[in-house]
């Protein structure tokens, strides 16, 4: 179908790569061009702040799909090319140093950029963010046993880096604005659980503090200055203070944006020929009945699938239950759903040990669940959340009961239907 059209995908991450893949699966036979400002095949980012920092991890182990996949799928790659603008009237994309590229449909998957702190000293050498492979290589250069690493931000990236670094013998201090770890995404119980783990491994936690400036020597960072006057000595700094969605191209092109590119439940922007997916979007959550922005691999992949279908004229709704994960030490934290609006929290199992889970309910309906090292219950929770399942909190709380026993009432979406 549509074998004489050209679809252009802007971005070199999960959203673009998966959209290209799904377009071919949809049967699109025309030209696909993926333009990435990075010089690499679209690659996996999670290892960058984990194994990548403490091993010789090479870019060859990171591509999301290997080169042969793009060749056999006839997906053209323009790597290391910077898109400078979208001319919607002419349906053309301007690329620095290259001829403009005409499109019949466009996907924007520009992701985000790490937030930098606009504080004194932020131009000193040795202050890092981590998003790209080059960021990782640069930061890794400073990794040596005994090196003092200060991490600003106790979100996933900050804590994963802390776990890896401390395992490699660095002296790690984590500085966090809020009172607890992963405050935006996890329950207090989980914050507590992870805090204990980090402390046990020798990480220093400075909670409820903010960084006010950096001190340098010979142009290189030497310390982080906190709001309470504390001076945290550091040879190396990681600013892991969150991600800012990258949507300047969309905004300049006149697409509706609101802290992200606004899309509908089919990943369409305000221009019917332009789609967007991933970290750069602000999209409706069918499950939760409101607009959300997510920074997650899973969301990028799901929106890519929906966008590809839409670009091929097929109506598929993005009606997904989001999920997230973080690997710190030998712990796998898994979170499915969004907790906002809960009226009850149920803790299942012993919160001192991996395997416990935390359930957010609203009027007995499961909204969100987080767990450590319990993939099976995580899977179960995902199904329940998607099915709007209601549970009996008393049974749920009791780890002696099978999880299945906690469901209230018959729910069609949970039973396999014997048809045919």
């Amino acid at each position, binding site marked *: 179908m549509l074998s004489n059209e050209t679809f252009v995908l802007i971005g070199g991450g999960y959203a673009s790569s998966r959209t290209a893949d799904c377009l071919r699966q949809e049967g699109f036979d025309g030209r696909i061009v993926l333009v990435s400002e990075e010089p690499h095949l679209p690659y996996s980012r999670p290892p960058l702040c984990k194994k990548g920092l403490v091993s010789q991890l090479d870019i060859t*182990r990171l591509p999301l*799909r290997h080169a042969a996949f793009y060749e056999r799928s006839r997906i053209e790659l323009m790597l290391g090319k910077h898109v400078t603008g979208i001319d919607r009237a002419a349906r053309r994309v301007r690329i620095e140093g290259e001829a403009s590229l005409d499109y019949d449909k466009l996907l924007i998957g520009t992701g985000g950029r790490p937030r930098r702190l606009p504080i004194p000293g932020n131009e000193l050498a040795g202050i890092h963010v981590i998003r790209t492979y080059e960021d990782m290589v640069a930061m890794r250069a400073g990794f040596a046993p005994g090196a003092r690493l200060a991490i600003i931000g106790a979100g996933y990236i900050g804590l994963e880096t802390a776990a890896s670094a401390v395992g490699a013998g660095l002296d790690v201090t984590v500085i966090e604005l809020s009172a607890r770890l992963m405050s935006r995404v996890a329950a207090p119980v989980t914050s507590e659980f992870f805090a204990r783990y980090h402390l046990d491994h020798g990480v220093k936690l400075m909670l409820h503090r903010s960084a006010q400036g950096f001190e340098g020597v010979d142009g290189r960072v030497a310390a982080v200055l906190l709001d309470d006057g504390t001076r945290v000595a550091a040879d190396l700094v990681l600013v892991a203070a969150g991600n800012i969605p990258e949507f300047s191209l969309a905004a300049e092109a006149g697409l509706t944006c609101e802290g992200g590119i606004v899309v509908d439940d089919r990943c369409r922007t305000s221009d019917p020929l332009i789609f967007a997916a991933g970290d750069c979007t602000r999209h409706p959550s069918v499950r939760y009945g409101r607009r959300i922005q997510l920074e997650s*691999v899973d969301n990028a992949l799901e929106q890519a699938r929906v966008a590809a279908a839409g670009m091929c004229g097929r109506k598929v709704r993005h009606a997904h239950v989001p999920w997230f994960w973080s690997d710190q030490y030998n712990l796998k934290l*898994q979170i499915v759903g969004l907790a906002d609006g809960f009226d009850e929290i149920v803790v299942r199992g012993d919160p001192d040990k991996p395997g416990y889970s935390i359930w957010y309910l609203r009027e007995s309906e499961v909204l969100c669940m987080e767990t450590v090292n319990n993939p099976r219950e995580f899977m179960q929770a995902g199904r329940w959340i998607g099915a709007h399942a209601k549970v009996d909190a008393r049974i749920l709380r009791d780890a002696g009961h099978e999880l299945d026993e906690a469901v209230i009432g018959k729910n069609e979406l949970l039973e396999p239907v014997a048809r045919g």
Partner: protein
Amino acid sequence: MTKQLGFYLDAEACNGCAVCLVACKDKYDNPVGVNFRKVIHHTMGSWEQDAASPGFMVPQISAYSLSIACNHCVTPVCLEACPVAAISKRDDGRVLIDPEVCVGCRLCQCCPYDAPQFNEALGVMTMCDGCVDLEGTGEEQACVAACPQRALEFGDIEELRAKHGDAVLGGVEPLADPAITQPSLLVTPHRHSTVLTGRTNAVE
């Protein structure tokens, strides 16, 4: 790990007939689009004017086939890419996907050998498991038993390496550089293969 299981392929004997692929597909009842084993056909060359006889075109081409499934790599990228820890490496070296944990995100398709295959009906990734269900039954792996050229073997990589001195570890064109994932795949190269040197697979 007590041992590292893997495949041996005699690419001199393989003729791309694909019965290995069909035998596996039949055993697992895999649908269209899901193939645990794949046959890669690699052609090189073109036609040219014959220097000795002007006006005649002559071929300078060579071609061969490779049959590969999951290489149960020593350092698999699929395992690392999986966000839900659905992929594990057994004591015997097999790399397995647990369909009860898999969420179908397809990130394990980073595999340079296309081993994990998405089963759309089931919503999960599926992959060659070295016929783990046949352990102890005396039955050979479906592909191994099926090959009419006797080109496939499955077993302890060290034993296979001792048996097939001329075999190289997975590094034959157009397969990926074995240094990336350390595949447990021994290949007696076809006479036209370019061989990539890779690190040896030490069993840890």
